[in-house]
C-alpha cells in the first residue's frame, strides 16, 4: 500500500532467494556485510552458492567476473561506498570492458546513511558508475520497484548497478506496478515545470509537486529509475512541454542525475534547470532527516528550486 515504509535492501535479499530458487546459476557474493546488505538470506538458503570474500572488495569484484565468465549470474553486494570507489579499476577492467554479466547491488547509498558520517556516505557512486561504458544503472524509488529491478537485472545480460538506501522508504507504487527498463515513470502530470527525481528523492518530489499545486504551480513529476541509459525521449518531451526542469537526487551535483539531464537538454532542447543535489562538499554524522535538511534535499528545497527555475523561464 503506497505510503507504507518498507526496506529496499530487505526486499533485495528476499528477491535474491526467490531468484536463487528459480535459477541455479544465480550466485551471490558479499564482503563481510551480508547482514546489512541482506544477502544473508541467500547465504542461509544456498550456502554453496554464496561467497563471503571478507573485507576485500576488489577481490570480490574480480571473483564475480570470473564466475560470470564461466556462466554464472553473480550478484555482488556491499555498501555503496565500497563498490565503485574501492574497486573502480577492477570493475572497469574485469567487468565493464569485457561486458560480463555481473550485477553489483550496493546498499547504504547517499547521506541518509546518517550517523556513520562522511566516510560511509556514498555521494559519488553514480558519477563513477556512469563512467563505465556498458553498465546499466538503476536507482529504485521503493521496495516494489526494487524487487522488479533486481529481477530485470537477473534476466538481462550485461553489467548492472543497482543503488539502494539504508533506511526504509515509503512505497510509491502498488503491487501491480511494472518496472520498465530504460523508461521514465510519470508520477504526476503538469505543465509549468518538470521535477525529475531518483531513489530516496521521489517521495519528496511528489510531495513538493503537491505543495506547489496548492500555490497554483502544476508540475510534472518523473521518476527516473533507469539512470543509464537515460530515457532521452521523456527528458526532451518534458523540456519541450514544460520548459523548465528541476532534478532531485541524493548525490553530488557532479556526475549524477542533474548532470546527465543537463547534458541531454543542452544537446536537444536547452531549458533552464535547477539541481537539488549535494553541492561540492562532504557531509557529516547526524540523523538522516537532519542531514537531508542541512544539505538541501527536502521537498521544501525542491519547491524553492521550482519557483526559481520558473522565474528564469519567464525571463
Amino acid at each position, binding site marked *: 500500500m503506497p505510503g507504507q515504509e518498507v526496506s529496499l535492501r530487505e526486499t533485495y535479499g528476499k528477491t535474491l532467494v526467490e531468484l536463487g530458487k528459480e535459477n541455479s546459476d544465480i550466485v551471490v557474493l558479499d564482503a*563481510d556485510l551480508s547482514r546489512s546488505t541482506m544477502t544473508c538470506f541467500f547465504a542461509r538458503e544456498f550456502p554453496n552458492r554464496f561467497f*563471503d570474500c571478507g573485507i576485500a572488495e576488489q577481490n570480490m569484484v574480480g571473483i564475480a567476473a570470473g564466475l560470470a565468465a564461466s556462466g554464472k549470474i553473480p550478484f555482488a553486494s556491499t555498501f555503496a561506498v*565500497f563498490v565503485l570507489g574501492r574497486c573502480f579499476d577492477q570493475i572497469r577492467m574485469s567487468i565493464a570492458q569485457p561486458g560480463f554479466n555481473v550485477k553489483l547491488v550496493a546498499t547504504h547509498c547517499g547521506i541518509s546513511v546518517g550517523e556513520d558520517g562522511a566516510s560511509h556516505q556514498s555521494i559519488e557512486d553514480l558519477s563513477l558508475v556512469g563512467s563505465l561504458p556498458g553498465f546499466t544503472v538503476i536507482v529504485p524509488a521503493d521496495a516494489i520497484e526494487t524487487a522488479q529491478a533486481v529481477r530485470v537485472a537477473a534476466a538481462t545480460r550485461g553489467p548492472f548497478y543497482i543503488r539502494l538506501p539504508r533506511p526504509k522508504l515509503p512505497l510509491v507504487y502498488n503491487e501491480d506496478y511494472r518496472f520498465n527498463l530504460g523508461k521514465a515513470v510519470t508520477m504526476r502530470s503538469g505543465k509549468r515545470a518538470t521535477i525529475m527525481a531518483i531513489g530516496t528523492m521521489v517521495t519528496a518530489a511528489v510531495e513538493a509537486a503537491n505543495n506547489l499545486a496548492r500555490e497554483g504551480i502544476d508540475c510534472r513529476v518523473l521518476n527516473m529509475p533507469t539512470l543509464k541509459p537515460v530515457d532521452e525521449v521523456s527528458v526532451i518531451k518534458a523540456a519541450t512541454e514544460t520548459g523548465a526542469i528541476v532534478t532531485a537526487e541524493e548525490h553530488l551535483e557532479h556526475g549524477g542525475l542533474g548532470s546527465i539531464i543537463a547534458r541531454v537538454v543542452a544537446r536537444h532542447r536547452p531549458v533552464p534547470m535547477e539541481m537539488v543535489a549535494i553541492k561540492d562538499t562532504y557531509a557529516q554524522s*547526524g540523523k538522516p532527516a537532519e542531514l537531508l535538511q542541512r544539505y538541501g534535499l527536502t521537498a521544501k528545497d525542491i519547491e524553492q528550486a521550482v519557483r526559481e527555475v520558473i522565474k528564469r523561464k519567464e525571463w
Partner: protein
Amino acid sequence: MLLSEMGNSLPKASADNVSAEAFSSPVAETRKLSVKEMEAIAKRLRRHIISMTGRAGSGHPGGSLSAVEIVTALYFWVLKHKPSDSCWSDRDRFILSKGHAAPLLYATLAECGYFPVDELTSLRRFNTRLQGHTDCLLTPGVEMTAGTLGQGLSFAIGAALAGRLDSRKYRVYVLLGDGECDEGQVWEGAMAAAHFKLDNLVVIVDNNGQQIDGWNREVMNLEPFAKKWQAFGWRVIEVDGHDLAQLTQAFDRAKLVKGQPVAIIAHTIKGKGVSFMENNPDFHGKAPNAEEVEIALKELE
C-alpha cells in the same frame, strides 16, 4: 561521574578526569602510569564506550572494547604527546586505522585532556566534533580521517618517512583490526614498510578473532597470521592484548628493534569486559539499549 549517569544535562568535566594528573604541565610528554593506574583508566574507558554508544543509539562497541588496553598503554605509557598542543611536530603519532573504534579513541583523548570529557555525549550527533568515524579536521588529537578500512598503514608509512627525512625522533603507531587485514592495501603497506626499513613504525593488530559476518577463521581465515607478517619482513611480538604489563613490555621491546618494522599481534576478545558483548558479533556495530547500558555499567563498576 559517567556519561550515562548524567541524564540529559551536560555535566562539567569530572573530577577524576585523568588529564589533570597525567598532563598537568603543557610541556609534559610521556607520563608512564602504573599498570594499576592504567587498569583503572581502562575500566573508565569501557564505561565511556558503553555510555557514548548507548546514548548515540549507534556505533561500534565491540571493536572499541577489545582495544581498550592497547590504546590505554599507548596513551598512558608509550606515546610522547601533548594534549595541550595536538599539532606538536615531535609528537608520536597514533593512527587508528580501524576508524569504527572511534568511541575508544575519543574517550581516551578526552581522558588525556585533548577536549572536555563532557563532549563525549555529542558522539555521532549532528554538528558534533565527534563523528561516527574519525575525522582529523574536527577532533583534536585525531591524526587520520578513517572509516573505510585498510588505509591506516599506508598513511603511517608516510608519517614515518617524513619523520626520518626530518631526522625527528617521533615514532608512529597504527592500530589495525584483524578483519581489516583482509584488505590488500594492508599487505601493500606491510611490504613497503619493510622495504623502507621503517624501524620507527609499529603496527598493533587487535586480533579479536571476529569481523562482522562472524569469526575470521570462518569468514576469511587469516592464519598463520604471525607468519604472514614475518614473511612480509616484520618482527612479530604476540601478547595478550588485555594484559597491560605484556603490552607495555612489548612496546618497550619494539623500540629496540632496528632496521625493520614491528607488528604486535594482540590477542583480544571482542566486546571485552561486558559479559553479553564478549565474542558476540551482534555488538560489532550495534549500540546497547538503555537496559543493556545499565547492565554493562554495573559489570564495569
